[in-house]
């Protein structure tokens, strides 16, 4: 597809200390490096190899990703927040490209 597009789902509000669920999706072929083209040449690997979720600058959760993760990679995980702030999501491509998304949360 065109430029990989991220989608993130973060609750808009939470209570201090509440454990929330975050869901993320990004469009990406995740070319595994296992496939061959019609001429028999191996199609080179090109995947998202790292995903990180930060909150107010601190790492919450991260993934080191291998080609066995499906195309359009999906990650669901938890976070416990004590204060309001911004989640920042980062996906790193084998070719060095970085894709980002941000979501704010209000903690009462």
């Amino acid at each position: 597809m065109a430029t990989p597009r991220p989608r993130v789902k973060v609750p808009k509000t939470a209570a201090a200390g509440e454990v929330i669920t975050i869901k993320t999706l990004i469009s990406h072929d995740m070319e595994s490096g296992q496939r061959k083209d019609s001429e028999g040449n191996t199609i080179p690997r090109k995947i998202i190899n790292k995903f990180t979720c930060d909150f107010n600058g601190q790492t919450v959760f991260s993934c080191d990703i291998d080609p066995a993760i499906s195309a359009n990679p999906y990650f669901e995980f938890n976070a416990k927040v004590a204060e309001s702030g911004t989640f920042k999501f980062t996906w790193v491509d084998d070719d060095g490209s970085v894709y980002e998304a941000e979501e704010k949360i209000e903690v009462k």
Partner: protein
Amino acid sequence: MRRGAWEGLPVRGKFAAIGAGVLVASALAFSAVQAEPVDETLSIDGVEMTTRAKAREGLPFDEVLSGWLFREAETRQLEADSFENPGMLYVERGEEIWNTVEGPAGQSCASCHGDAAESMAGIAAHYPKWDADSQRPINIELRIDKCRVEHMGLEPYKFDSDDQKALTTYIKHQSLGEPVNLDLAEGDMQSWWERGKERYYLRTGQLNFACASCHEANSGLYIRADHLSQGQANGFPTYRLKQADMVSLHNRLRGCIRDTRAETPAAFSDELMALEVYLTWRGTGLSVETPAVRQ
């Protein structure tokens, strides 16, 4: 049924095809395992979809069923959650295309059609429609091409290009939940419906299968590990787990026909347009599910 066992059969000759067909038909019967489609409701973002409807007059069964009912729990769950549904990534891409100016006329879809959520609402449930200009049925993909050529100064999309699939998915998604309902009284739609019906029941290919061979005569049974659905069109373009990508209806029709080992008709050919009319009609009453999630 082991495909390898009779791969060596000669391809030539009507009798070889019929012989193969008998072999296959009996093999299918022997390996038949029946499973009911699930008794569950599909709600997407709280909106209930119609996945079961009364079959149209003339069909040899009572109920039309969405392919959703034949899939495993995890696959069904993917479609029920509009955040998790990977097809929605293509809806987003389609929206981007909708709003992007392209071509010498300096237009985007939005230039004429404004907000798709309004202008395209419910429309796709009535496609394919009769197109007086070309004197044949027209589907969403061809309608997009018509706009591109006549109003935007652009070439038609290459079949199954990423942009064509994304934009078609986006437009059809604006009819999510709407029951499929074609107007066969328009133009010559009725005679194309007849041609489509003929094609649906026509056995072709080395395996001598018709669409009906699997999707009507054996729907509900297993072909290897695939739970055979009724082969309805209401969810297309569909996010298929196998390709991890959107699959258009004509791509799927060509794939099915290829798998009967017949020559594949071209996308948007008369043969496939007629089949699309008839096939869509068979699913009358089912909700548009685009982007559906299937295996």
